[in-house]
């Protein structure tokens, strides 16, 4: 049995006696007998701390990663370095074991960290307002659509077919509730072909830049398409590529969303990640999620507090702009630390290093017989190639060689898919020339 309830048997007896009860069972007298789980839970007995550690280590050992499986996969999850400072500060227990900052007087630590985070996200997005985090890139996009939708719902949404396939899947899942019509715009040569959009009056136009194929989109074309219909432009951006690219705001976005995992969070088998969300100032009253504002305390000192709470579900209930309550604060705090650690010059340098690695790898792979471009458009930190062997097979075989070769991707009816013929390869600042050379050599063997 676990022992996280502190009471000794004597404590329990005394407390029960204070309550006039004879047994712990009597605490549950209100639970009808028929509903009682007489047999107890059919779970194994509790284990000691070292036994739990042993079991968790067994499970961990049954995964391959790190030097055992050198990572060239991206597709929305990136193998960036997390420096000791970010890791150690981000795991301080005051951050980890606090609740949502409902009582600002004892929550200035989390609140100020979020305020700084919001500033960073706002600058990365080139938009005035950023919230205190959403669940992940996909959920941020869903919230962006809800925000852009007419208040009476059931809007049409144009979503680039080169947006991450999983994100598009999530958008469609939640559209079943909101009633939005999701129109996926096909791609041509890896870019969204806005001319191929069907007739209709979208409330929002969504484009990713770089997109799922790592391709740099023509965001101005998306802006034009949006303007034509008075729609909001939602740009999904990558915070690392942001080190080199013009901001979504500069390129005309009304709302910018993104996956914040690259900012100080390990790949974590897909979560917890971080939904980045920023928008124009005039949209703030419909902002999903929490927002921290700076204010003063009674003594006139700077203080931070969650603000514009009236948008939120606990106050507005069924009329709230979103149902989000618990978000990803701790991951946002880590991102704040990581962005401070990178700083102005570091983010640019990081983006540059990723782009250099990608270019070097791409050129080397293209030098292999039978390897071809999957799309010809310009890419930045990741790129897709066609190989003479099916990409899924390549990934499996390369794993045996100690490489996570990439992600198998494709295009179906003009829309990006996971599990296709092409290989999507991503290169982060962690990949050395030596690793890349070995990787390319291995790919050469595997596709021979």
């Amino acid at each position, binding site marked *: 049995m676990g022992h996280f309830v502190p009471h000794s048997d004597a404590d329990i007896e005394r407390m029960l006696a204070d*309550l006039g009860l004879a047994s712990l069972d009597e605490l549950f007298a209100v639970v009808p007998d028929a509903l009682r789980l007489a047999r107890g839970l059919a779970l194994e007995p509790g284990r000691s701390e070292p036994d739990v550690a042993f079991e968790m280590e067994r499970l961990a050992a049954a995964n391959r990663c790190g030097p055992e499986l050198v990572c060239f996969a991206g597709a929305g999850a990136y193998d960036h370095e997390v420096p000791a400072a970010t890791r150690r500060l981000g795991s301080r227990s005051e951050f980890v074991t606090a609740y949502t900052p409902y009582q600002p007087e004892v929550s200035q630590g989390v609140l100020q960290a979020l305020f700084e985070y919001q500033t960073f996200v706002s600058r990365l997005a080139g938009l005035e307002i950023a919230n205190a985090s959403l669940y992940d890139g996909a959920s941020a996009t869903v919230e962006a659509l809800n925000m852009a939708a007419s208040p009476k719902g059931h809007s049409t949404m144009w979503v680039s077919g080169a947006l991450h396939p999983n994100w598009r899947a999530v958008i469609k899942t939640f559209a079943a509730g909101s009633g939005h019509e999701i129109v996926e715009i096909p791609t041509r040569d890896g870019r969204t072909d806005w001319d191929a959009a069907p007739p209709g009056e979208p409330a929002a136009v969504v484009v990713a830049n770089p997109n799922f194929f790592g391709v740099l989109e023509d965001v101005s074309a998306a802006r034009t398409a949006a303007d034509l219909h008075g729609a909001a432009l939602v740009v999904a951006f990558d915070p690392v590529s942001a080190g080199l690219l013009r901001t979504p705001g500069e390129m005309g976005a009304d709302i910018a969303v993104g996956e914040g995992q690259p900012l100080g969070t390990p790949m974590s088998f897909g979560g917890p990640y971080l939904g980045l969300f920023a928008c124009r100032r005039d949209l703030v009253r419909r902002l999903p999620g929490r927002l*921290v504002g700076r204010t003063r305390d009674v003594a006139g000192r700077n203080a931070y507090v969650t603000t514009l709470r009236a948008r939120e579900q606990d106050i507005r209930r069924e009329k709230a702009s979103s149902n989000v309550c618990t978000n990803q604060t701790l991951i946002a705090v880590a991102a704040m630390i990581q962005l401070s650690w990178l*700083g102005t010059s570091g983010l640019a340098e990081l983006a540059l290093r990723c782009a250099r690695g990608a270019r070097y790898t791409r050129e080397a792979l293209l030098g292999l017989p039978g390897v071809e471009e999957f799309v010809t458009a310009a890419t930045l930190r990741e790129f897709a190639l066609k190989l003479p062997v099916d990409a899924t097979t390549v990934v499996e075989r390369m794993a045996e060689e100690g490489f996570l070769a990439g992600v198998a991707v494709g295009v179906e009816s003009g829309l990006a898919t996971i599990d296709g013929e092409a290989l999507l390869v991503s290169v982060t600042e962690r990949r050395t020339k030596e690793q890349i050379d070995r990787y390319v050599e291995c790919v050469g063997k595997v596709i021979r």
Partner: protein
Amino acid sequence: MTSEHNARVPAPAGRATSAPVMGRDSEATIFEYSSPGRRAWSFRSTGLPEWDASELVAPGLLRGAPVELVEVPERDLVAHVTRLTHRQYSVDLGAYPLGSCTMKYNPKLCDDAASLPGLANVHPATPASHCQGWLELLWSLSNALCEVTGMKAATLAPPAGAAGELTGLLLMRAWHDSQGETRTKVIIPDSAHGTNPASVTLGGYETVTVPSDDRGLVDMTALRNRLDGDVAGIMLTNPNTLGLFEEDIAEIAAAAHDVGALLYYDGANLNAILGVTRPGDMGFDIVHMNLHKTFAVPHGGGGPGAGPVAVSARLEDFLPGPLAQRGDDGTFAWVNPARSIGRVHSWYGNALALARAWSYILANGGDGLRRVAEGAVLNSNWLKSRLRGTYDIPFDRPAMHEFVASTSTLKKQTGLRALDVAKRMLEEGFHAPTVYFPLIVEEALMIEPTETESVETLEALAEALIRIAGEVAGEAAHAPRSTPVGRVDEALAARRLQATWDAVCQPS
């Protein structure tokens, strides 16, 4: 927009006036510590060609100057963030009797589990053959949660309670669709958490509120009046947000099922009944759990959590995918349910939070989980009994893991409001209870001590609350005085919105 900030005189990062160990001044923002040319970063040497940005990005797309973040050395960053942690209350510092939030102590062994490199460093697109450990973990956790809730199958993907709710509502919708029915309404009690109605709206349903009766439980007559063929489902939490067990739950379930509605369980209060009774046995069809309440995922200052959804057999086919499944040969694979509503997360949910929950379940075992519920309910009732006579206890029935008190009478007598109590509690070295929730109780103080607090801590909580109740009128208005900042001007924050440092620097 921000170029002038760095031109200002940077604040002294080595000055620790904000650390309470030394004083009560404000901590400057990281932006104020910035100074051109300083840095913390360093990157691996790679041996790769050092192409220029202009050789890698077309001119029209390349930004002119770098994004202006900050320029600080690691030393100043570390000092700043460490000081921020000294301005933050947390469970590890003391009791956190925040009702509905289950702010229990999370064993440190779970932190270890979540930081194993073999879990933390795995790319989500790793072929299943190379991440069998993760799939086994997800499969095992899913089974355990089904056992705990008495359900058939589960998805672990929803990243928080509210996301679980919406997932559940979409499952409800898919179910009715599969029955060829279109239903429009979901019934929720007036005591429900705000995420419930918000999720109902996002699920495309209309919220119908059912009042509580004078027991604090669902008013059965009112419920029956509202139940008809338009009702897709009822969302309940049991114990409810008053901390009371819905004794009529079997009847409610029967009534719901009679009209073809489904019964949804908001598992935020599951901590109270672990191993004692199960939503499935009560007749619920859909259950979301807040692993960050019940299963020791720490709250992280507001997340990440995890909000798995478990369902009864008839809903299994609709679950979002992919799900980890064990094959006959003992290996694990991803499967997608036949009529899945689709994905609800970029990948598989908050996986590392799931790993924490699994380690917590392993450590407790079945007997340990029941002890958790016993401890939670014992502590709650004991504390309630200490406060009876000082505070109003609006629905004074046997409490489960939490209870709701009120300053209604005190307010009339001395003007003491729930908010004042909260702020005074901060001075007393505790976090405050939840206030003004549930909405059906005036001046509500929702108190959830959790099972990890000792009886002495409960006694100290009680003494503080009783002391506050006995103070002279107006005394509490100045609280809190011993905190890093005094009472915060929330109205100003909304009126003169400054949501970024850049907004602070702009003339408004």
